[in-house]
């Protein structure tokens, strides 16, 4: 009888924790009406106007994958390849399993001018990258919490029902493994983007110089859509690095962070 009461208490505790995280996941939202207006402009062929409409929503603080995707499309259609790629990549971050985003990003990348030499990536690394990026960071955080709650539940069950302890132990081991992987993927991504945040060239052509200023020697030029990583910011200048290792300074406004 006492055991039953205890089970009830722990169950309520778990339920409380679950509802807490679910209610947390419920996002604050904005109306989609403005986006529908911009969609109509797009469908009428007024891509520049559509892009302005979407951009206004983004500026107002909306962070929606579908909005970024449509904005990327509008920029692509109006010929702004750099901003198209920038917004596709932002969309990809929020909609990592969306085939449309991947397809358009690939098409846009095929049209960029600079052929950037990427290091040969092993198939295993590519696979790991795909797995790691299968969830958004927010989703991964929620999944990790869910796994934690399940793991704690399993441990509690194993303590309470000693006869079924073996099942509980295997289950808990599996869940703990998954939890560890999720936490690892979150850690890797945070570390990766925090260390060298990715960025995209949006200016039609940007001259990369040897230092943060107009007087420095021009080292090379990048064109719209080139994808780089930023390693330092100083005033209005950022230091960027290409996958091949080429480095240089460019105006920050021409190379916004993804």
């Amino acid at each position: 009888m006492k055991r039953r009461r205890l089970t009830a208490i722990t169950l309520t505790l778990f339920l409380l924790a679950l509802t807490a995280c679910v209610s947390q996941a419920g996002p604050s939202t904005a109306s989609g009406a403005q986006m529908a207006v911009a969609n109509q402009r797009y469908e009428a062929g007024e891509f520049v106007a559509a892009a302005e409409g979407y951009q206004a929503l983004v500026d107002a603080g909306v962070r929606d994958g579908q909005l970024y995707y449509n904005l990327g499309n509008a920029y692509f259609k109006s010929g702004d390849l750099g901003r198209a790629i920038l917004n596709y990549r932002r969309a990809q971050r929020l909609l990592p399993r969306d085939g449309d985003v991947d397809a358009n990003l690939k098409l846009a990348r095929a049209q960029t001018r600079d052929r950037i030499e990427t290091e040969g990536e092993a198939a295993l690394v590519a696979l790991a990258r795909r797995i790691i990026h299968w969830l958004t960071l927010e989703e991964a955080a929620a999944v990790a919490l869910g796994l934690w709650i399940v793991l704690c539940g399993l441990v509690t069950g194993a303590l309470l029902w000693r006869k079924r302890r073996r099942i509980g132990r295997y289950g808990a081991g599996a869940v703990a493994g998954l939890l560890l992987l999720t936490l690892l993927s979150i850690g890797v991504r945070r570390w990766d983007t925090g260390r060298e945040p990715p960025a995209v060239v949006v200016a039609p052509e940007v001259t990369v110089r040897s230092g943060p200023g107009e007087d420095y020697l021009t080292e090379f030029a990048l064109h719209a859509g080139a994808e780089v990583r930023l390693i330092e910011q100083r005033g209005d200048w950022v230091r960027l690095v290409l996958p091949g290792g080429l480095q240089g300074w460019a105006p920050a406004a021409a190379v916004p962070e993804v």
Partner: protein
Amino acid sequence: MNAMMTEKNSKNRRTQINADERRSSHLRKSAFIPASISALFRFCRVKTPLHCSQGIAKFPSSARPRRRSRARLNALYLLTLLLLLSTLAVPALAQDAVTFSAEVDRTTLSTDQLLTLTLTVSGDYQQVGDPQLPLMSDLNVVGSSRSSQFSMVNGVVSARTAFIYRLQPTRSGNFTIAPATISVDGTTYQTDPIEIQVTQGQAPTSTPQEGDSGAAPTPPPGASGGLSGQDLHVEADVTDPTPFVGQQTVYRFRFYQAVNLFGQPRLEWPNFNGFWSEALTPNNVYEQTAGGRRYRVTEVRQALFPTTAGPVTIPPAQLIIPGDFFNADVTLNTDAVMVDVQPLPGDAPDDFGGAVGQFEIEAWVEPTETRVNEPVTLFLRVAGAGNVSTLTDPTASVEETLTDWRVYDPQVNIEVGQDGEIIRGEKLFERLLVPTQAGELTLPPFALSYFDPAADKYRRVETPPLTVQVAPGEDLPGTTPGGEGKQAIDVLGSDIRHIKAAPPTLTMGRASLTAQPLYWLGWILPILAVAGVWIWERRQRRLSSDVAYARAQRARRLAHKRLAQARQAVGTDPDAAYAAVARALTDYLGDKFNLPAAGLTHDAIQRVLAEQAIPGDLIDRTLNCLTWADSGRFAPRAAGRGAGALVAEAETVLTELEDAITQEPS
């Protein structure tokens, strides 16, 4: 050298080449030490993260304690670096020898021609003086000029100064130009002697004839009869007055001047209607004698490609010579030039697109191995002599035949250059092709037909067919192998995927989930629950395994239960009440001290309680309670006091005992 460099830099500091020079010259000025120190600093610096304000703020404080040992290390580095640099620098400086050479543009000439003698100093030098020309009685120096050039490759300076002399022979015969000498950075250099041969020219120039009759038998090539001793003269002609449509001809404008001018003459080109024109550089400048006067001739040229057949008149070109304070502007006009453009022969091949000249064609694909839906780039390059700007795309006609490909519009790069007077160029067509089928796909040959005006016939050049290995890609409806009778879907075009419909609500940018306190509560609550359950479970386990612990734990609860029963029985069955009280107390003590309740005599109770250091009066009260209960049970009337009072007394005794026992560190 450095002085010259800095002087040059101060003039136009903005240009890029100078920026490069400035950096290198800075390095050359024995500025090794500061340079190496800064290099070391860079070497030692911790790679700062993007938000570097933090990183920089932290760095010095953490580095300070280790600075002394690091300074010693730095000194060591510096020393080795200096040694290395000095070993590198010394041979580099020694290697840069200065050369001084002389050359002539021809070794045989006639007396009416001019000889160009060029003396060249090259190498790494600082100061160069004027060369000393040998005495030459047979050659007159009629003009001289000097040009300098610096270049800097990987920090190595090479300079070149050329002294150009125009020499005119005074008589025919074999001469030797004796060595010239020059002083460079204090050292004297000498050229080798040069042998030349001068033949008798048709017009004796050593003694210019007075009067203009001498010019008549030997008109300079291209000069019209109009040039006969005036101060200034202009004329224009074309190299080929009867070109084919699209064949290059050169329009030449010549300006003859026998006097110096104050202002810069300005040329007004005629309107080249009916031609595609391209400027030719550089201008030809030479000297020529005619009518007994020496003229300086400037020839300016335009390459012309006729666009239509038939006679075309190029209107006169105009040269405007600005006047000075005393003279008005002078305008000189050439004659109009007639060009009779020939139509191309009628036997043109079907795919002839108007190309005239000599062309080569080349095609390749990058990469040659791909997957379905992954693009390759088709490059087609047409190069040769002729007007490449108007060439049509040879790949345009095969666009429809490439059924296994999605074809994108080409990107075209044109480069035009010149080879002497001939315009050459190349046109590169870059097309993105996306295979829709797996397998070995073949691109058909690409051909270009052109008219070769030199051979006066049409020619056709063709590329070999290209093959591309296409591996199967991700499944698409068009690529899944259908059964018999099924047809693959033809993909007619490719575009980005369409926009998404607006959802009823959009996600706002909100603080990350991990920034919410409730999220972390979600992590803490379950672990608290686990901890609670674990503690409870441990207690349960002890209760079941440790009898003494279990008895002690349940003693109080059991005693209170018995007392409650006793209180209920007070009114109805006093005997049961007394028995219950007695049992409650003895069982309690037995459980607490893990003793068999049956054998608990008053003496034993007293001893046990005394061992536990229970106050004496409490022991007495306990025993008293027990005696009372026993006497009540066996001699109810003798008891005197009621069962209710006993129960109340037993309850207080029990509470006090409980307090006394639990206070004890047992």
